[in-house]
């Protein structure tokens, strides 16, 4: 396999034009930390963004940053932190879950629409993303959006490219709006609640005016490598120190019917949310398959119960109950039938985030779509990549 690492957009366009002429599919990659997600491909060659490095624009007073796609997240985050700012969507660190090493790239984060716990308040990666440049499957350089926060000029490919896993274009540069890092964060923790009570507490808190920026429930017996732990229901508040103190007190009072609470402050809070963000409670044992299910928050426990009626599983909830992380034995269909049936009954969609390659070749990794939508997806793929050279089949057959 040849690995192409173009040093410019124009070189990337050349690589893709040649691939198109030769009908030779390309795998697209940054540093490969999420290469194990999706249906396995048969690309003969790989096109990586690692030759496209560097922050191209940073205006702290305008709260905007742009970087070439191969720039490492750690480098973007460091530059932002030096000015007291951050990406708000809290991209997870994939190493723990995927067993990969290397530093994920900013382009890979966009291609996966890779968002963490704060998604519930601040939006997903696609909501912070305000501009993209990419090379389509014809080898044409295309831009959409820009560097301003409000933009409704023409079709929004910024959103469309986010989460398209490289199947529509090879991202070359991405632009985000950013926000100041709040002065303080405190996590309010309730102990010992079962799933339904825990998620009910999360939903109640999310309906409060206190600006919850993280809402997760770790069920009885959860662990992240050590001893089984009692159930923990977590609510994060961020803001000025004055404001956070006030809101924590008010929220604690509101949640009194769910029992007493303790507080995690500063680094303790940051640590627990990094574990939630990175799906640590389902990362081990490594040989198990992992599903990520998005549903209406209050129905998270229904989905878990429905899956567990069919198959042994370990789970926890983020996004107020609306993001279910679930690990199950990787054998047979890795629990696909049980997961899809649960989602069909209770709504939402499920993605197989981790499984052996032969399982990913055999099951639907992404949520199968009803035919009118599946047809639109196939035709959109053709509108961007007529010869099917960009990650063909990574999401579904024909896409």
């Amino acid at each position: 396999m040849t690995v192409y690492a173009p040093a410019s957009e124009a070189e990337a366009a050349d690589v893709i034009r040649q691939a198109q002429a030769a009908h030779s599919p390309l795998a697209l990659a940054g540093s490969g930390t999420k290469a194990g997600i999706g249906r396995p491909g048969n690309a003969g060659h790989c096109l990586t963004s690692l030759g496209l490095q560097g922050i191209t624009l940073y205006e702290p007073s305008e709260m905007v940053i742009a970087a070439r796609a191969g720039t490492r997240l750690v480098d973007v985050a460091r530059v932002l932190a030096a000015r007291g700012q951050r990406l708000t969507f809290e991209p997870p660190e994939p190493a723990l879950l995927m067993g990969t090493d290397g530093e994920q790239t900013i382009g890979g984060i966009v291609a996966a629409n890779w968002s963490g716990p704060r998604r519930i308040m601040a939006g997903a990666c696609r909501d912070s993303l305000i501009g993209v440049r990419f090379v389509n499957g014809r080898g044409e350089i295309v831009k959409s959006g820009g560097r301003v926060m409000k933009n409704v000029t023409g079709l929004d490919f910024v959103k469309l490219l986010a989460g398209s896993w490289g199947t529509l274009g090879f991202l070359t540069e991405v632009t985000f709006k950013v926000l100041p890092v709040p002065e303080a964060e405190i996590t309010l923790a309730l102990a010992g609640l079962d799933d339904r009570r825990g998620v009910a507490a999360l939903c109640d808190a999310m309906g409060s005016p206190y600006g919850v920026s993280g809402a997760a429930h770790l069920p009885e017996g959860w662990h992240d490598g050590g001893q089984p732990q009692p159930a923990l229901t977590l609510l994060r508040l961020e803001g000025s120190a004055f404001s956070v103190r006030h809101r924590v007190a008010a929220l604690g009072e509101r949640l009194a019917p769910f029992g007493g609470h303790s507080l995690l402050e500063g680094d303790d809070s940051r640590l627990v949310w990094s574990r939630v963000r990175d799906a640590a409670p389902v990362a081990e044992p490594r040989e198990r398959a992992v599903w990520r299910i998005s549903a209406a928050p209050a129905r998270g426990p229904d989905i878990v119960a429905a899956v567990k009626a069919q198959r042994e599983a370990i789970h926890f909830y983020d996004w107020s109950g609306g993001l279910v992380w679930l690990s199950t034995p990787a054998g047979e269909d890795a629990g696909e039938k049980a997961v899809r049936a649960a989602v069909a009954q209770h709504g939402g969609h499920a993605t197989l985030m981790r499984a052996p390659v032969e399982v990913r070749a055999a099951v639907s990794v992404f949520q199968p779509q009803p035919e009118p939508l599946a047809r639109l997806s196939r035709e959109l793929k053709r509108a961007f990549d007529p010869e099917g050279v960009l990650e063909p089949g990574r999401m579904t057959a024909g896409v």
Partner: protein
Amino acid sequence: MASIAFPEPDPAILARREAIWADLARLVAPDALITSEDERRAFETDALAAYRQVPLAVVLPSSTEEAAAVMAYCNREGIKIVPRGAGTSLAGGAIPAPDSVVIGVSKMRRVLDVDYANRTARVEAGITNLAISQEVAAEGFFYAPDPSSQLACTIAGNIAMNSGGAHCLKYGVTTNNLMGVKLVLMDGTVVEIGGDHLDAAGYDLLGLLTGAEGQLGLVTEATVRILPMAEGARPLLIGFSSSETAGACVTAIIAAGIIPVALEFMDGPAIRICEDFAKAGYPTGAEAMLIVEVEGSEEEIEDELAKIEAIARTFDPLAIRVSQSAAESAAIWKGRKSAFGAMGRIADYLCMDGTIPTGQLSLVLRRIAEICAENGLGVANIFHAGDGNLHPLILYDVAKPGDLERAEKAGAEILKLCVDVGGCLTGEHGVGIEKRDLMTYQYNRADLEQQMRARAVFDPRWLLNPAKVFPLDGRLTAQ
């Protein structure tokens, strides 16, 4: 004569008018079809009222099925469709064509379901923006995007134009608050995208659809995110002797890590016209004014307003006034939200909508004043300062020969200026017909062709709102 061109109507369609009316009458309820000239005339324009075209027919369906039947028929017959919400588009997004059927969603305005635990509301798409917030207010919730036209504009129109509002600095625009839609495709197929969960499966079709100006399909139902209201909110007015100082103050507030829920700017002419209308207590001697709103508990509001006030004091403000009551807050916002109406009392105007990097503010305001002066026109500036979304109102007199053309020329120069400094043609009003011919200034051929190829997936024959967004020359159809 105004300068925006429309495609030549299809004579074959015009000739079949009566037959088409008869066909439509068989597809929809009698009260859903409008054919008389007087009644069709009511749909000839939108808020870009300098342009008027009476449509072939108007259909106001009561259900998705009715809308789908009409679209399937029009698709078969090659008849153009122009979707319409409340017709408040400032960019001409809802202006019909003589050979088009308008499908208006105004009769579909029910709230279908509100789910407070999951914080979603499912509504028919003809409901007004404000009605959603009113529906959920008693439970302490609201729908966040708040365009100035929110009393009249529909959620269908908001989705088509990805509408924003004064509070999107904190809460985002329509695309950030939309979770699912029921969409009728041009061939009459009904699809559901997304739902009451976050991040719809597969490609982000919801993101593609939002802001597509009704060119990809007709939205008949929407699931939107509702949010708990803040405990309280209070605006602060700051008057300055120049726009430059006001702009510097905005930068300083944001640099201090403070993100107010709203950060609105008005220049001297806008202040005086709005004050005359709304009696909001605006500082009429100022050349620039900021409305800064913060949210939270009473203590949090006090704390944050004090910080903002301290920053503002370093810019020698002419006036600082913190709202002392709910009535005063409402009056302050009334002045801002009625700005377009107030302006309409004294002059005809074109409302521009470019977005610029906020660092370019002083330069752009100076150039806007010059461009308008060169064309012999007045201008008032109102905009969302936190996000750089400008609304210069170019004042003209429709009765004065050549004035509208001069205003359009000045508008085009201003929008090109926005692009030149790194911004875009439209932040929240959409391209419509108004900025259609400027698209080549922001996008090159490859950019536009890719957009048209994606568009063709949904509407291969350019039947859906076809006069809009893309320049009339060089259009790509199906592959």
